[in-house]
C-alpha cells in the first residue's frame, strides 16, 4: 500500500464497509468514485443548517446558498485553470455538457450531415449528442495499443469538419490523448474542439488555457463529488454567442408575452433551480483534492498501474486491452474462455467490485473485435492489496472455467 493511499483510505467511509460479507475492494472508480467524508459533511451541513435556494431570497440561508453556489463556480474555474468563473456553466454532468454544446453551439452552425470528428475510443456520450444535432460522426482511428493515429487525424481535419470532439482520457483503454497537439492541429484548420474530461479530471491536473480547447467538461461524481452535478467550461466568446439550451427561471433578463431577453452567460444556460447541494459537494471535493499533492498522487497511480499490469500479465489466458504509453489507472482485459460478466460476478462474491460490459464504448469494442471486456479502474484510495486480491480472484476464475 502506498503511503498516500493508506492515509486517504480512512476518509472514505464506504471503503470500511462489507460487500457480500467481505471487506469491499472497490475497483470501479472510472464509473463513479467513492466520496470522502469532507464531501458528505459539506452536503449534510448544507441540508441541515444552510438550506435555501439561490439568487431569489433576501433571507440568510438563501444568501448563504447563493454565496456557496458562486464559490463552487470559482472553485471549478480554479480546478480547470480557467481565466474566469464566468466561463463555467453548471450542468448535470459530462453528458449534459456535450448535449448542450451539440444543441446550442454546433446545431445552429451546421447543415444536416456535416461532419463531427470523434475517435474510435469515444464514449457514447461523445458520439450520440452530435448525431442528435444532425451531424455525421467520423472517427479518428486508433492503433492496436489504443493510441490515436495523429497522421489520420491531420488528414481528417484537412478534409473538413465542423468540430473535433475527443476524450482527454479513454474510459475503456486508459489512454491519455495528446490534447494539446490535437487542439493545435484543429486550430490550424479552424476547427473548434470539445474535450471530454470525464476520466481526466480525477487523474490529471487540468489547464484548459494550456490545452487550447474551446470546450472542456467533466462530471462531479468521478472526482469524488456527488452525482447530478458537473461543469462545462467554454471560451467566453462562444458562450456569448450561443443561444440558451433550456428556458425557465433564473436564465432570463426580462420576460414578456411578446418575447424574452436572457441573462448573460453562464446563467443563460442554467434554467431552473439547480442542484445546489451538488455544487456544494463538488466544491468540497475539489477543495479536498486541492489540498493533496496531486503530482505525487499521479506518480503513485503510475506505479500502481505498472504493478497491476504486471500482476494481470501473470494470470493465465488474460489479455490486457489498452497499452498506450501515456495511460491513466484503467486495466481493461479479457480472459480466454470466460465471459466478462462471469468474471465480474464471481469477483463480486468476494467483495471485489469491477465492471464488465462494453463500458458505453460499443464502437471501440467492435474495433477491437471483442463483444465485451472486464475493467478494473483505480482511484487515489486504490492499493496494491486491492490489485493482489483482484489477481488472486482472476486466477481462481480462470481455473474454474478452463
Amino acid at each position, binding site marked *: 500500500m502506498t503511503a498516500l493511499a493508506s492515509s486517504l483510505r480512512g476518509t472514505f467511509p464506504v471503503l470500511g464497509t462489507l460487500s457480500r460479507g467481505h471487506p469491499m475492494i472497490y475497483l470501479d472508480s472510472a464509473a463513479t468514485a467513492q466520496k470522502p467524508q469532507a464531501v458528505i459533511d459539506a452536503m449534510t451541513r448544507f441540508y441541515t443548517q444552510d438550506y435555501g435556494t439561490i439568487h431569489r431570497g433576501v433571507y440568510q440561508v438563501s444568501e448563504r446558498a447563493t454565496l456557496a453556489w458562486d464559490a463552487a463556480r470559482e472553485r471549478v474555474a480554479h480546478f480547470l485553470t480557467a481565466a474566469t468563473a464566468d466561463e463555467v456553466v453548471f450542468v448535470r454532468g459530462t453528458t449534459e455538457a456535450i448535449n448542450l454544446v451539440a444543441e446550442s453551439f454546433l446545431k445552429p452552425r451546421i447543415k444536416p450531415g456535416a461532419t463531427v470528428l470523434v475517435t474510435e475510443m469515444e464514449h457514447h456520450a461523445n458520439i450520440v449528442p452530435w448525431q442528435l444535432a444532425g451531424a455525421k460522426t467520423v472517427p479518428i482511428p486508433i492503433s492496436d495499443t489504443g493510441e490515436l493515429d495523429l497522421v489520420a487525424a491531420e488528414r481528417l481535419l484537412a478534409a473538413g469538419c465542423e468540430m473535433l470532439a475527443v476524450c482527454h482520457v479513454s474510459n475503456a483503454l486508459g489512454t491519455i490523448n495528446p490534447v494539446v497537439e490535437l487542439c493545435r492541429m484543429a486550430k490550424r484548420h479552424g476547427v473548434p474542439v470539445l474535450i471530454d474530461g470525464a476520466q481526466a479530471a480525477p487523474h490529471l491536473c487540468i489547464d484548459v488555457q494550456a490545452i487550447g480547447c474551446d470546450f472542456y467538461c467533466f462530471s462531479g461524481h468521478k472526482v469524488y463529488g456527488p452525482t447530478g452535478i458537473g461543469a462545462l467550461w467554454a471560451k467566453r466568446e462562444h458562450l456569448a454567442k450561443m443561444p440558451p439550451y433550456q428556458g425557465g427561471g433564473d436564465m432570463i433578463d426580462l420576460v414578456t408575452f411578446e418575447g424574452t431577453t436572457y441573462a448573460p452567460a453562464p446563467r443563460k444556460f442554467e434554467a431552473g433551480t439547480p442542484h445546489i447541494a451538488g455544487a456544494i459537494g463538488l466544491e468540497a471535493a475539489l477543495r479536498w483534492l486541492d489540498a493533496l499533492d496531486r503530482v505525487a498522487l499521479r506518480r503513485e497511480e503510475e506505479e500502481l498501474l505498472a504493478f497491476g499490469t504486471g500482476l494481470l500479465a501473470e494470470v493465465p489466458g488474460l489479455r490486457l486491452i489498452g497499452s498506450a504509453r501515456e495511460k491513466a489507472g484503467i486495466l481493461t482485459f479479457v480472459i480466454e*474462455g*470466460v*465471459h*466478462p*460478466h*462471469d468474471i465480474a*460476478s*464471481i469477483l463480486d*462474491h468476494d467483495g471485489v467490485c469491477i465492471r*464488465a*460490459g*462494453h463500458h458505453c464504448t*460499443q464502437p471501440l*469494442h467492435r474495433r477491437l473485435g471483442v*463483444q*465485451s471486456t472486464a475493467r478494473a479502474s483505480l482511484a487515489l484510495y486504490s492499493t496494491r492489496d486491492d490489485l493482489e486480491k483482484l489477481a488472486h480472484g482472476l486466477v*481462481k476464475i480462470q*481455473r*474454474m*472455467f478452463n
Partner: protein
Amino acid sequence: MATSDEMYQAVIIEHARSPRNYKPLVTPTHHCDGRNPLCGDEVSLDLTVDAEGRITDIGFQGQGCAISKASASMMTAAIKGKTVPEARELFERFHALVTGEPTDEKALGKLVAFKGVAAYPMRVKCATMGWHVMMEALDENREKRPNGSEQ
C-alpha cells in the same frame, strides 16, 4: 472450484463449457433472436413443433455469459419432447425459482441449479434470456425462420 459461489454450480459451468443442442435447425417451425442491449448478449433459437404441439427438436446459438449460456442449454434439454403448454408451465416455474418466488422445485429437476441466481437480481435477465426468446418464438408462431436457407 469455489464452493461458495452458489450461482456458479458445477452443472452450470459444465453446460456453459459444452452447451447442449448448440446448433441451428435445418427446418425449424419457429425461430426467434434475442438481444440484451445492456450487456450485448445474443441468443438465436430454433424450434420444431409437430402437429400435436410437441417440441420435437430445439437448437440455440449465441454469445453470452456462463449463466445465460448454461440456462439456454439446460432449457433446451428440459423442454425437448414437451408440449408447448408444458414448456410454458416450466418457464413459469423457472422464472419463480430465479426471482425467489415459491415454486415446486422437484418439478424443475436439474434446473434447480439456478436457484442461487435469486440472490443476484442483476443476473436474473441472464438466466431467463433463453427462456424469454423461446416464449417469444412460440408466441409469434412463425412458420419458417425468416433468414432460413429456403428463402
